């Protein structure tokens, strides 16, 4: 009897041990403080002497700082679309390492197909990069709260590497700093470049269609597209990116209400709170004729496009559409300032020109206020956008002194001189900090960066809103949905987003 009991009890006992062991393992992994990212040694760190970097008290920590620099990754071998002869950040890192013995800068050379997901997963595991590429809108809204250090305090202090400025913020682009702040006024990244967008066109195909000059007005753009179509040339063929095109039209149509919308949160720029309140007040909603007023107008243009990608997800079909243009199959392609470099990489034989989104007039639509909204799409959404991981998102940041060391490195990279060097070496973007100059090839597009940043659009108040609107937009432009149905769908998406925002942020819209 005893034996039978023992034989039955043994497996249960072992299973219990296994479960406990599993639990312990799990807890250990949760509570562990080992640096999976950096390789600093805490005891060593505490003992490390100050090592003379910058002009202030140098960081006492020693170890490796990991940085994911996206388009600025030096000597990248695994990231597509980056020049292999890009070295500037490495040179800056070498210089920094020399001045800070014991600190190593390691750049992450990996391709991330879904970067948002990568950041989420790495942060959840406490293994996010010490310094990482992240755009302000994502940091303010899409990414989970608490994955990036609030840099506001450092913005208000001197940067030891910019001795002639009282604060770091003084060296930055003031408009960008103001308009990219989080609803609470926090700054989660340094923002050093500007991406411009434009219509790029194949000059040979334009000539074949008898078009002598690039379009300057909306009517000329429609006319050129029709001429191309009549000549048997595909005028355009790409997924019409709702997030991009809405900003051109809405920044124009709503320009007189910009200050009203931006003031809801009592901070500069249009934050996700401003957007949510604007929706709740019926301003940024289908109740306002301007909100959907541009859809039929834009359809005039897309009716001349090849239909293949109209209902596609820009993320899914974007590369195909770009390849069609680079292969000379389509005449016009709307894209970012990286396209000329893509074309050079693809060794395209034809000459590429570019023209800005036209300034609309009252003749085009009575909704237009006539402002130049050509720069409303790009803006401070390039790649020189770096955030610092919190200790929750990156366990190695718990090491004493590491946070200060990482901020110090960011301050070293974040000087006008270094911003200009890195951005111009890359060649796809425009440096925005005062005193910096763009490459000659970017001067035309750089004019967009000098304009006041008053872009209006929706999509930041809820993670799903932009994607939801893109789906309805595609169905409408492809003729699979009429405007009434599209309007009803859009309003439903806006209402859902507003409810979502209010729930997540505990917002009472009646207060605004």
């Amino acid at each position, binding site marked *: 009897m005893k034996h039978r009991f023992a034989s039955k009890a*043994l497996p249960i006992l072992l299973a219990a041990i296994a479960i406990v062991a599993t639990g312990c393992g799990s807890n250990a992994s949760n509570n562990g403080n080992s640096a999976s990212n950096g390789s600093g040694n805490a005891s060593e760190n505490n003992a490390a002497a100050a090592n003379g970097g910058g002009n202030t008290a140098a960081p006492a920590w020693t170890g490796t700082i990991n940085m994911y620099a996206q388009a600025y990754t030096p000597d990248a071998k695994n990231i597509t679309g980056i020049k292999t002869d890009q070295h500037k950040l490495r040179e800056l890192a070498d210089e920094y390492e020399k001045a800070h013995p014991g600190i190593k800068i390691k750049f992450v050379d990996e391709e991330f197909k879904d970067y948002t997901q990568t950041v*989420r997963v790495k942060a959840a595991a406490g293994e996010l990069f010490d310094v990482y590429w992240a755009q302000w809108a994502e940091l303010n809204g899409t990414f989970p709260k608490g994955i990036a250090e609030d840099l506001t305090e450092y913005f208000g202090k001197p940067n030891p590497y910019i001795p002639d400025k009282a604060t770091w913020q003084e060296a930055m682009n003031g408009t960008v700093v103001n308009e990219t702040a989080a609803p609470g006024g926090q700054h989660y990244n340094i923002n050093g470049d500007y991406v411009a967008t434009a219509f790029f066109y194949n000059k040979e195909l334009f000539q074949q269609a008898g078009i002598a000059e690039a379009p300057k007005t909306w009517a000329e753009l429609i006319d050129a597209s029709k001429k191309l179509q009549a000549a048997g040339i595909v005028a355009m063929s790409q997924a019409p990116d709702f997030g991009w095109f809405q900003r051109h039209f809405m920044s124009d149509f709503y320009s007189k209400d910009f200050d009203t919308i931006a003031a809801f949160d009592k901070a500069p720029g249009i934050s996700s709170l401003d957007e949510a309140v604007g929706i709740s007040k019926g301003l940024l909603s289908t109740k306002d004729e301007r909100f959907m007023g541009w859809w039929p107008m834009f359809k005039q243009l897309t009716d001349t496009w090849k239909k293949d990608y109209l209902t*596609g997800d820009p993320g899914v079909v974007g590369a195909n559409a770009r390849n069609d243009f680079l292969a000379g199959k389509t005449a016009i392609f709307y894209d970012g300032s990286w396209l000329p470099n893509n074309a050079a990489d693809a060794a395209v034989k034809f000459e590429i020109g570019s023209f800005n989104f036209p300034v609309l007039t009252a003749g085009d639509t009575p909704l237009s206020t006539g402002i130049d909204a050509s720069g409303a799409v790009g803006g401070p959404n390039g790649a020189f956008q770096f955030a610092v991981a919190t200790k929750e998102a990156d366990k190695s940041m718990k090491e004493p002194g590491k946070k200060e060391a990482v901020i110090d490195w960011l301050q070293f990279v974040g000087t006008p001189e270094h911003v200009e060097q890195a951005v111009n070496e890359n060649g796809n973007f425009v440096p925005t900090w005062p005193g910096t100059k763009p490459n000659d090839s970017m001067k035309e597009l750089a004019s967009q960066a000098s304009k006041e940043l008053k872009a209006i659009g929706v999509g930041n108040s809820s993670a799903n809103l932009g994607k939801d609107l893109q789906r309805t937009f595609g169905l409408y432009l492809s003729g699979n949905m009429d405007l009434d149905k599209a309007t009803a769908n859009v309003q439903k998406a806006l209402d859902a987003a507003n409810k979502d925002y209010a729930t997540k942020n505990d917002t009472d819209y009646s207060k605004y």
Partner: protein
Amino acid sequence: MHFKDKTKMALTGYGFILPTFVFLIWFMYYPVYQALSGAFTDWDGFNAPHFIGLDNFTRMMTDEVLGQSTINALIWVAFSIVLAVLPPFVVSELIFNVKKARLQYVYRTLFVIPIVIPGIVTILLWRFLYQGDGAINQLLGMVGLDSWQQLWLGNPHIALYSIMLMGFPWVSAFNMLIFYSGLQGIPKEVIEAAKLDGATGWKRVLRLDIPLSLPQFRLIVILTLVGSLQNIIPPLVMTNGGPGYSTYVPILHMYNVSTVNGEFGYGMSIALIMFVVILAFTILNMRLVKSDT
């Protein structure tokens, strides 16, 4: 053998399986537990989750996208089961009835060879075939069927069917081999006796082969049911659920709300319901087929 020796021997045995058991719990059961408990929270994938009771499930009731996804999934499952069963069974019958064993082997091999092509390659290939200027439309144009040309993945009315019907001629090598081995398992005496009773050709297939292959049918139906409900890759890669939400399915919705929107709690609640539905379908299917046999 003394108790001490028996205990020692048992401990040794259990000692050997203990590491496997630990990893099994750690990597299989613990995540399931996390998913179950997470379904009742608002976890964003990073910050501490808060218990929100049945809010996620209430939200599911009014989630129109989930509603359309579910309808799409049901259509998908029905088509998948037909395509997973019929063509492989027909081909296995044809091969099984080839007289020469060597020829049977050759045909089997020919149908199995494509299995080495990674699934993602097939999907990308079909994405190109379905393009407006892709091979399918070109072929239709060549044979004078221009009016049949379509935007196979761009038309919300046919995109779901285009994805479901990719992979022509739909002969899954795995399913074909399962059916073939089932047919091989039918005793020769039974086949001979059926022949003597006049059960040849279609009569034999309907009255002998199919009834005796029911365990294979059951297995394939269950695997297809589970597989098609979990199959996220084709809609994700080919259309990301578009145009509109015409190719959206619950698993893609779960993926997007979790990893794109950061609503892991809600994603887990969808996963939990999917788990229950798949389990229910599986039990139902097993009971129905069992009662038939």
